[in-house]
């Protein structure tokens, strides 16, 4: 059973960012798909930045994100980059939660002139998090919702890449350091084996 989580950082209601996230999610045709709007968690995300822990509302979202087989991340373009709320959310995700996870990235904006934000801003952040970012990123400008600009074909191609990547990867398995701690003798031995800059 495959689980896909789509994250929309759109702020308007209705939101074209949410629309794009939903279109992408539907096209992946996973067994289970969920879309989360960060707007609903904006205060919780800020609280996490200040208190350094996820409150009871946010904890299940972060857990489902870590457990998802694949992610769809869609942000509006604000001031030449991804939105602040989107980045704040990435800042509170556990650093290894995205490691090796297939991720489809998308963005929306008023004009197609911002489309390379996906390649120059968003893709490097996810590469830093060691996510497997799929080659096709989908940008939807306002005009794409009315004209025939191949948006549907781009959505289908990107969703197909995500579905194929999820299908060929083993199910998400996670080492629980609390259930399976590193024995103390290994911790001691590790000190002499480490270099200063690992």
């Amino acid at each position: 059973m495959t689980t896909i989580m789509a994250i929309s950082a759109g702020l308007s209601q209705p939101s074209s960012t949410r629309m794009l996230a939903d279109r992408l999610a539907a096209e992946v045709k996973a067994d289970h798909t969920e879309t989360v709007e960060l707007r609903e968690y904006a205060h919780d995300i800020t609280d996490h930045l200040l208190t350094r822990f996820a409150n009871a509302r946010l904890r299940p979202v972060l857990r489902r994100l870590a457990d998802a087989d694949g992610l769809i991340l869609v942000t509006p373009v604000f001031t030449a980059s991804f939105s602040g709320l989107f980045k704040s959310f990435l800042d509170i995700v556990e650093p290894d939660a995205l490691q090796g996870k297939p991720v489809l990235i998308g963005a929306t904006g008023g004009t197609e002139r911002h489309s390379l934000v996906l390649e120059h801003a968003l893709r490097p952040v996810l590469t830093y998090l060691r996510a497997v970012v799929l080659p096709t990123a989908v940008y939807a400008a306002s005009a794409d919702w009315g004209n025939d600009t191949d948006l549907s074909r781009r959505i289908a191609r990107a969703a197909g890449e995500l579905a194929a990547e999820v299908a060929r990867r083993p199910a998400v398995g996670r080492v629980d350091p609390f259930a399976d701690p590193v024995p103390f003798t290994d911790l001691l031995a590790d000190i002499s084996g480490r270099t200063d800059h690992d």
Partner: protein
Amino acid sequence: MQFGVFTVGDVTPDPTTGRAPSEHERITAMVAIALKAEEIGLDVFATGEHHNPPFVPSSPTTLLGHIGARTEKLILSTATTLITTNDPVKIAEDYAMLQHLTSGRVDLMLGRGNTAPVYPWFGQDIRQGIPLAIENYALLHRLWREDVVDWEGRFRTPLQGFTSTPRPLDGVPPFVWHGSIRSPEIAEQAAYYGDGFFHNHIFWPAEHTKRMVSLYRQRFEHYGHGSADQAIVGLGGQIFMRANSQDAIAEFRPYFDNAPVYGGGPSLEDFSADTPLTVGSPQQVIDRTLGFRDYVGDYQRQLFLVDHAGLPLKTVLEQLDLLGEHVLPVLRKEIEARTPAHVPSAPTHDSLRAAREEVTAG
């Protein structure tokens, strides 16, 4: 069960007046709080260790030595002693000295410290926090137990034929707690040595505290120090009381809303629901504190944070009076009644000396 207070030693302006105490006022306030702790019958006073403003306690054994000279029963402890950036040789010497001066009323809690620049200021690297904690404690543990130590490690200059003086009082090293909010490696370390494990508790949800303590208990048993429910556990807590709970909330709210750690973030109500923070009547503090056992099991030490976020000394001393008069007697009675006989008390110098004599005699 031991009860006590732990202090961060922050110099924070009182948000209701805008006035910040001077460093001198804050330091003398910490002493006054410790003396009050003894007066109301608390067992433990623990100080933080910091090397940057707005904190004052950079020299814990100086502070504790002074308090030790002015008290009779209080156990002097730390929360935490930086095992990463202090030289373990100096920790061995300083705390053994403190033991002698206070007739053994000393234990300490080791922690890594999460202020990144402190590491380079003391010639270390925060990325090596866990290896530093493990290697430095391995040396400290030997310095208190072996009269002559030959040692070579990764982080410190080697020792040949070194004897740490003074030797621990009665040949009994101070009891050590290992404190960590989120690193399973530290719970593992505490379990390996059969030392205590302290969870700060106050900044994180109970669910997380439970996981850390549970790991420590399982591994304590694994290493043969006793059953999991005999492991030595300490917890933090954070309280503010008035006879009427609405008065407590109204008075504490500006301190909460402007506190350095969580100010500007969650509401007092949300934070109280998510963490052990209890603002209300003495009865509410009693009920909440008794509830901690439900998720960590029977434990040995409860420390409360009462003197932060700019609360004036007068208010803190009133809090301690309320604690001593209305909360402590009930908690002691209730917890004693609920704790099974095979669960040990927190080790003290006397209990450790007695155990040592038993081994020597046997």
